[in-house]
């Protein structure tokens, strides 16, 4: 594991781990699965190696992952919309800021919000962001 992979793995642990631990303490009403909080899904933009690494760490931690590429329309329509309409839980992910912007606006329709956001500055190809959306 090189430094870059380690950092991205750390981001996944930070995001998913916070959802599992510290975040759970802040939201005591949330649903727990054993010691870990139930993250419904971990989303990642499979165009970016960093996001794929992030998802690999999340998957290794036992989280269900869903890949998409930039446009969140199908992800929203097929996956998130029915889940959130039915209640659903928290989700986390690593995406471009513009994809997160869309998800954040869509989350508002279900009285959900971005509760954690870590920005990853990159010199080329656009920044990335890892995040948690909760209620």
């Amino acid at each position: 594991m090189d430094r870059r992979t380690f950092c991205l793995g750390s981001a996944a642990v930070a995001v998913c781990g916070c959802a599992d631990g510290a975040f759970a303490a802040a939201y005591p009403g949330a649903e727990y699965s054993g010691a870990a909080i139930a993250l419904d899904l971990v989303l990642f933009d499979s165009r970016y190696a960093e996001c794929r690494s992030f998802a690999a760490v999340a998957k290794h931690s036992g989280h269900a992952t869903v890949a998409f590429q930039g446009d969140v329309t199908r992800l929203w329509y097929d996956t998130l919309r029915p889940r959130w309409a039915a209640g659903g839980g928290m989700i986390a992910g690593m995406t471009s800021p513009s994809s997160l912007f869309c998800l954040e606006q869509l989350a508002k329709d279900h009285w959900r919000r971005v509760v954690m956001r870590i920005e990853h500055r990159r010199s080329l190809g656009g920044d990335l962001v890892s995040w948690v959306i909760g209620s």
Partner: protein
Amino acid sequence: MRLPPGVTPEEFSRALAEFEQAVGKQWVFTSDEDVDLYRDAYSPFLHEAEERVASAAVAPSSTEEVQQVVRIANRHRIPLYAISTGKNLGYGGSAPAYSGCVVVDLKRMNRILEVNEANAFALVEPGVSYFDLYHHIQERNLKVWIDCPDPGWGSVVGNAIDRGGGYTSANYRNHFDSHCGMEVVLPNGELLRTGMGAIPNAKTWQQYKSGCGPWIDGIFSQSNFGIVTKMGFWLMPQPEAYLRCTVSLPRYRDLGPLVETLNYLENARITSGFPDIASPLNGYPPLGQIQLLFENGPPTMTEEHQKLLSEAVLGYSSELEAYGLRAGIAYWELWLSFYGPMEVIEAQWQAAQRHFAKIDGAKFRIIDRLSLPIDPTKVEQYHEPEFGVPSLRVFSIGARTPWNPTPSKGHMWFSPIIPRTGEAIIEANRVFSEAARDLGMPLFRTFTLPACFWERSFIFILATPVTEDPATNKRYREGFKKLIEIGGRHGWGEYRTAPVFQKTVMDVYSFNDHVLRRFHETLKDAIDPNGILSPGRYDIWPKHLRGTRT
């Protein structure tokens, strides 16, 4: 606790308690983290104290609850600001026109009350999004299409009463025009139905628009005279086939004849799909393809082409035109689309070619010939809204890419209506490019083409960026206002605007000493004497707040 202006904490607490009784405690929001969800995500006041924000929010689930909320607000003189889903980003989002209003969030009212396939109409509540209505139709395999804006995440009702537009056939693209019948909670809490809906047990509420007597639906759009709780819409019967074609024209002077011919073909209903004017020689793509430019980068140009383009004035130089003729690059390219039975639309395309062939050098090409319905897995190959499919792909425009290294934090739409002539396109470019340059505004830097959402007029839709820097945002806001005023002096007005610009825009509509504004406010005083409903929206202020007009 945030407070509406002029309301004491005690009075506000009493009102909130009554709101809770009316809609349920969990549907009244007062904490900062909840109320912040109603901030305008594209606010031109980013990081500034002047940002317009709500004091609280209340989310009723039925018309009866809306009536109760309005009556409570009247008793306690609480200003309300109704939103459907608040997705009109660039035009104000979910934030109130008057800071301190309680947002009446209607997205729990998300029932699709009827979709009638046989007569192609729908009746929906304001919380129904284009995605919801599309899903409802797909799930039931109904043979009707919606017409949606791009992005398609907003409310069907909200977009229509904000007078938004879409991309399918001309009969449906103007979303307010394609509505039929409203239910409205008036500012005193009474319930009104318009058109045939005024007849108890009406049988044609969604089939005949105007009923009898004055047709008042228009006053509930871009206004603050009531809260629309149901609205009917005409839908497009699913067409059998689709044809998309281009007409390429070689010379700058061809723009006028292009527009004249297009106007005839549209007004005669020979073409009804969304027309899209591009200029390959100016590097200006059709609106429906603009996201590809952001996804894949701008078209490659030779150095000579780039140099000639940089020296062109109002998109023209004789050298640029000669280069285009030599290199086989069209000056203008009109994208036409047709919906209907294949034999009909092929014949319409033949007729269109016959008319455009009168312009010397016109060339024709078929881009797509499709049988419908399109395979849902393949619709992403096209501009989805032209097939009545809502999408969010347009947000790729805002992404950071090598050709867009500093994405903005949002934008304010500058969207003046101009006449549908080639001369008007050039004149508007002359006026606005000079003004934008003088004002330091990042608009009209290159020759800019308008969009063809509406029949009989053009509209420019240009994004003025919102940045992280308050000083830049202030300069852009002031410049934006100047552009509105300059447009007004030339007889051009905005079709829609964010609250921060609504006074400036309505100042332009000044015929006969602003009689239109005076009429609006006479109505306001008559039907909302306490001035509780959306004060300031489209610069219509209740009497007690007229001194605060901003």
